[in-house]
């Protein structure tokens, strides 16, 4: 296994090449356009035995993948931001039909014309039933794409997976990565053989069938939710198996220096890398700071997170997206997880990296200072902390 210097887009494309994909369809969209280009080139050169379908829009992309998946194909696409918005309608059908499609999403803002990194695109579809995994760096992106097929196609799960990697910060960043060998991936990923999908004329099955209030809607939704819950076990199992083959184990969450931590940061995505560096330095100075990276946002790993943070005094969540008029997604999930426990840590919420604003070490250090001070004085902070607001090093509390 050799190290190659690859951008996130190229790393993901190379990982997909090893997964014996049957059909790819993708549209150009900054910052993940190179994925569609790279995969088309692989197909053109015969390096990847797949069909590359030139689609006329992300809506058609997801519809094409839906049809192909029902016909028994292993499929892949990549999109982000407004592209994800355009495929919103077909996206809701995919988990309901239990189609194990894998999609790389290069997180980009929805709403404002902004090309940099933000989680508002995937957060806006967090209720759809897609498994969502947020990766820290390009190596984890490679590992997660390969694991995603195993997780999605597991008979206990049968749900699609979004591999979320921050646009620009990961997609255009070149890092040394190891692409696993074809032999390793072949031994790790069994061929795709769905039992619940068949276009046999003798069986004449009808998919996407109607259900309504008195006819199974509630029961089917319960069934899909149970599949999501089972996915937690599967994600851990698959991560462990992959770890034994490559030496890199990723689970639902990754605690980092959380032993005897007084303050724990909870992060997702690429800002974790910077945050880990700050935590190391603060620890060297004697401060009891720790970090938990949430890798699987859906299904949300409540128990695993609780285990990592229950001894701390302060938990600070960093959200890269805003839910206007309400609480941001990661903060809400952590709050709901902590609430039932009687001696729960104090929870404070921060907005970091919204719209792609750089989450620098200085701003994180300022965040740590602010939250510790607030805890000393009043045990809590009124409002949310906007990291890097107005462009300076001072984070504003609003």
């Amino acid at each position, binding site marked *: 296994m050799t190290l190659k210097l690859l951008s996130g887009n190229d790393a993901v494309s190379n990982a997909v090449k090893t997964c014996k994909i049957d059909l790819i369809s993708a549209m150009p969209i900054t910052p993940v356009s190179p994925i569609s280009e790279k995969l088309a080139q692989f197909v053109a050169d015969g390096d990847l035995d797949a069909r590359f379908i030139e689609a*006329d829009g992300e809506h*058609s992309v997801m519809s094409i993948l*839906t*049809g192909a998946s029902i*016909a028994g194909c292993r499929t892949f696409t990549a999109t982000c931001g407004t592209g994800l918005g355009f495929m919103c309608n077909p996206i809701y059908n995919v988990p309901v039909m239990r189609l194990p499609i894998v999609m790389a999403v290069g997180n980009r803002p929805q709403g404002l014309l902004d090309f940099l990194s933000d989680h508002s695109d995937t957060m806006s579809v967090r209720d759809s039933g897609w498994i969502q995994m947020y990766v820290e760096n390009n190596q984890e992106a490679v590992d997660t794409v390969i694991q995603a097929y195993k997780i999605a196609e597991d008979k206990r799960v049968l749900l699609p997976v979004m591999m979320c990697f921050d646009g620009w910060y990961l997609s255009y960043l070149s890092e040394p990565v190891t692409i696993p060998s074809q032999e390793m991936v072949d031994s790790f990923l069994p061929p795709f053989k769905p039992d619940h999908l068949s276009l046999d*004329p003798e069986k004449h099955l*009808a998919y996407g069938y*109607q259900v*309504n209030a008195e006819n*199974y809607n509630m029961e089917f939704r319960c069934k899909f939710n149970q599949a999501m819950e089972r996915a937690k076990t599967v994600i851990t199992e698959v991560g462990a198996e992959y770890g034994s083959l490559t030496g890199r184990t990723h689970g639902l969450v990754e605690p980092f220096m959380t032993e005897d931590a007084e303050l724990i940061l909870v992060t997702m995505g690429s800002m974790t890398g910077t945050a880990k560096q700050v935590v190391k330095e603060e620890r060297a100075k004697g401060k009891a700071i720790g970090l938990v990276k949430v890798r699987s946002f859906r299904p949300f790993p409540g128990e695993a997170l609780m285990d990592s943070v229950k001894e701390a005094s302060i938990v600070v969540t960093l959200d890269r997206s805003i839910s206007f008029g309400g609480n941001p997604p990661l903060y809400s999930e952590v709050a709901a997880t902590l609430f039932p426990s009687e001696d729960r840590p104090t929870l404070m919420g921060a907005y970091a990296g919204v719209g792609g604003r750089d989450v620098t070490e200085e701003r994180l250090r300022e965040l740590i200072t602010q939250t510790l001070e607030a805890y000393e004085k009043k045990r809590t902070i009124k409002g949310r902390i906007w990291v890097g607001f107005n462009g300076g090093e001072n984070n504003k509390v609003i």
Partner: protein
Amino acid sequence: MSKQVEKEMRGELVAEGGPLCPGCGASLALQFALNTLGKNTVLLTTPGCVCMGTLTFDLHTLVKVPQIFTLFENPAAPATGVKAGLDRAGTEMNVLCFMGDGGTVDLGLGGVTGVAERGDPVIYICYDNEAYMNTGNQRSSSTPYGALTMTTPVGKNLKGKSRFKKDMPGIMASSGAAYVATASIAYIDDYVQKVRRAEEVTANDEGMAYIHVQAPCPTGWRFQTKDTIKVARLAVQSGLWPLYEIYSDEFKLTRRPKERVPVREYLNTQGRFRHLSDEQKDLIQAHTENRWRKIDESR
């Protein structure tokens, strides 16, 4: 005529006792499309009359072929995926999209023309009942000029639809569909021949086959249920619904009325045109004459 048609039937694939209206034109269009193609077909439908007419509550099916219910606004794209998947597995089956005018001409236009441009060998039949009938007769861009619908009503300020319908077969021909045809349920032998031709074209991997069949709706167009075939026949005989096919860039009429009857005869059969003034009827006549002049000049 019926003996010819009978020979082409490969089975009766729609179960009896379906929920469509008595005298439904779309029902005939569906029956003959499926029965001509046979069991070895994957059927894709979107929400609409035919879709709601081929499903039930409590998870039972009404057609004896595999079926996929897609979203309203993406009728054709899943068919691309299904065809690609079947090819990959080495299975040969017809892929038939059977969609209404609302989903084809309005919502799904991008997706449908995308399939034509890509050349995916999918058979696409648009049954045109000239409105969003299943939701209660609201206008679509395939509703003809002057028609009364619930969203182009007749009153002091509005007098029915004020624009002519989109030329969907023309759009498909210029988007790269390999075979484009119009059909009518009054001429079933012509329709069945075109479905058979569509099957040939797609089996030879030449590209997309598109058939636009007029499906008169007694409920929405407001005529007696016994007159469905009569109305469809008048549409063809008055020249309002020319029957043609376009293949290899060649335009060919498959039925030519010897002498076109006045368009008024067709308009007078339907309640949705009852409010039309003489000027409006003359306008429709002129529009039809103009269309036929272009057809004749191009030959």
